């Protein structure tokens, strides 16, 4: 790994953000809208639901964590798509940067894009709805780590699809997370799902992350086994994502799509 090259590619995406105020606004806008929407829904449930009535902000905290996952994945995809849209793709792939350095650069830069969007939303939730994700305490760091790894994995899988099928795969990039959301048990306990779907859901880290989040907020206790499970599953998916990315890269070289990507 050459950190200068990783920094260079990261810098390319930071300059893109710095040079464009509408881009910063776009990053902040959607998470903030989400907070408002789920904040009011959360408030309504808190007042009217027996399940939630003692735990202000479970839904809003879930919305914030889910948005973190969503932003991480989309940030990764967006940075890759930017190279296609700007027709810079070939320049990037003929530069002496290794594939693992490209993955590292996009992974590290995605966190900055994600936080630019999410921090204002998290801060707004505190005075407006009296909800702070920081109430999750130290386990929050581990939950965010698991979410981030899984978000990046989804980003890797979508970018692999872009390498394989070209820009026509772009729509899948936007739809990918919505596909998994019902199985992630973000806003409801896993018991809500039919038994067969529960088995599939348990193979995703999301269930363990959001079950644990609810456990911490509702029972004021921490089940570290759940946290360990969520991180382990996320790491396994991440490794899988990296392998798929490499397979797609070598496949793209075979098909010659790297030389005319974006056309």
């Amino acid at each position, binding site marked *: 790994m050459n950190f*200068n090259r990783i920094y*260079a590619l990261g810098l390319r995406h930071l300059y*893109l953000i710095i040079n464009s105020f509408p881009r910063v606004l776009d990053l902040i806008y959607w998470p903030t809208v989400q907070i408002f929407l789920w904040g009011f829904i959360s408030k309504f449930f808190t007042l009217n639901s027996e399940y939630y009535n003692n735990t202000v902000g479970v839904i809003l905290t879930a919305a914030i964590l889910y948005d973190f996952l969503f932003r991480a994945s989309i940030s990764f995809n967006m940075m890759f798509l930017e190279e296609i849209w*700007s027709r*810079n793709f070939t320049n990037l792939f003929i530069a*002496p940067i290794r*594939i693992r350095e490209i993955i590292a650069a996009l992974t590290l830069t995605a966190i900055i894009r994600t936080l630019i969007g999410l921090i204002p939303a998290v801060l707004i939730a505190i005075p407006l709805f009296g909800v702070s994700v920081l109430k999750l305490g130290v386990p929050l760091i581990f939950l965010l780590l698991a979410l981030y790894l899984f978000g990046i994995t989804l980003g890797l899988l979508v970018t692999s699809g872009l390498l394989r099928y070209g820009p026509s795969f772009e729509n899948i990039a936007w739809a990918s997370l919505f596909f998994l959301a019902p199985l992630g048990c973000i806003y409801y306990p896993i018991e809500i799902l039919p038994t067969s779907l529960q088995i599939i859901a348990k193979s995703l880290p999301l269930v363990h992350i959001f079950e644990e989040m609810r456990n911490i907020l509702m029972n004021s206790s921490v089940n570290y086994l759940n946290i360990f499970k969520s991180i382990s599953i996320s790491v396994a998916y991440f490794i899988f994502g990296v392998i798929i990315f490499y397979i797609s890269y070598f496949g793209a070289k075979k098909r010659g799509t*790297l030389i005319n990507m974006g056309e």
Partner: protein
Amino acid sequence: MLIEVKNLTKIYNKYLAVNNISFEIKKNKTVGLLGPNGCGKTTTIGMILGLVTPSSGEIKFEDKNISLFKRDEILKKFNFASPYIELPKKLTVKQNLEIYGRLYGVDNLDKTINDISVDLDIKNFFERKTGELSSGQKNRVSLAKSLINKPEVLLLDEPTASLDPDIGDFVRSYIQDYKSKNEITLLLASHNMSEVERLCDSVIMMRNGKIIDNGTCEELIKKHGRDNLEDTFLKLARSKDEL
């Protein structure tokens, strides 16, 4: 021999894009790669740059198969410019050159960027976004990027396409001047025959994925009984028989 291409073939599904071609490029020489659209020039360039995996055959750089080099090790020695690929439009010229300088691990980056910018006369729009530039300006910035690492091998795909005669001449003169002052080997794909005559030591003519002839411009013109390279190109491109 700096670059040796041996029995190179590329098949996309069932389409034969490059058909068993072999050629050599000596160090510090400029070789023109000519042929009608779709003849396999870009695929050949793609294979040399490692963007396309050959179906068979090999490419050697300094007597070593290119596939045996580490990706960053070999690509440091190469660079490429084409009007069909661009630099990020929302970044300024300076930012783009800085990023590519870092990606190529250029030492003394500020000085290198400054020198190349003065030479290519791009300093006056250094702080402008690349997407806001005219095609002539973009072309010079793209050339600056392709020379930022002082490549041993530079591949140029139609470097003066869509440029007005004045800027086109500036770019050709610059390439000539740069070559006279630096050790660099050039592979130039072009449809501009006067450009090829002016810049290239020898040319390779391709058609339907095959090399149909090669030699110096003078040799080819004489061999095919034409007055200039353009007429020679037309004869070769339109002839049905292999030569």
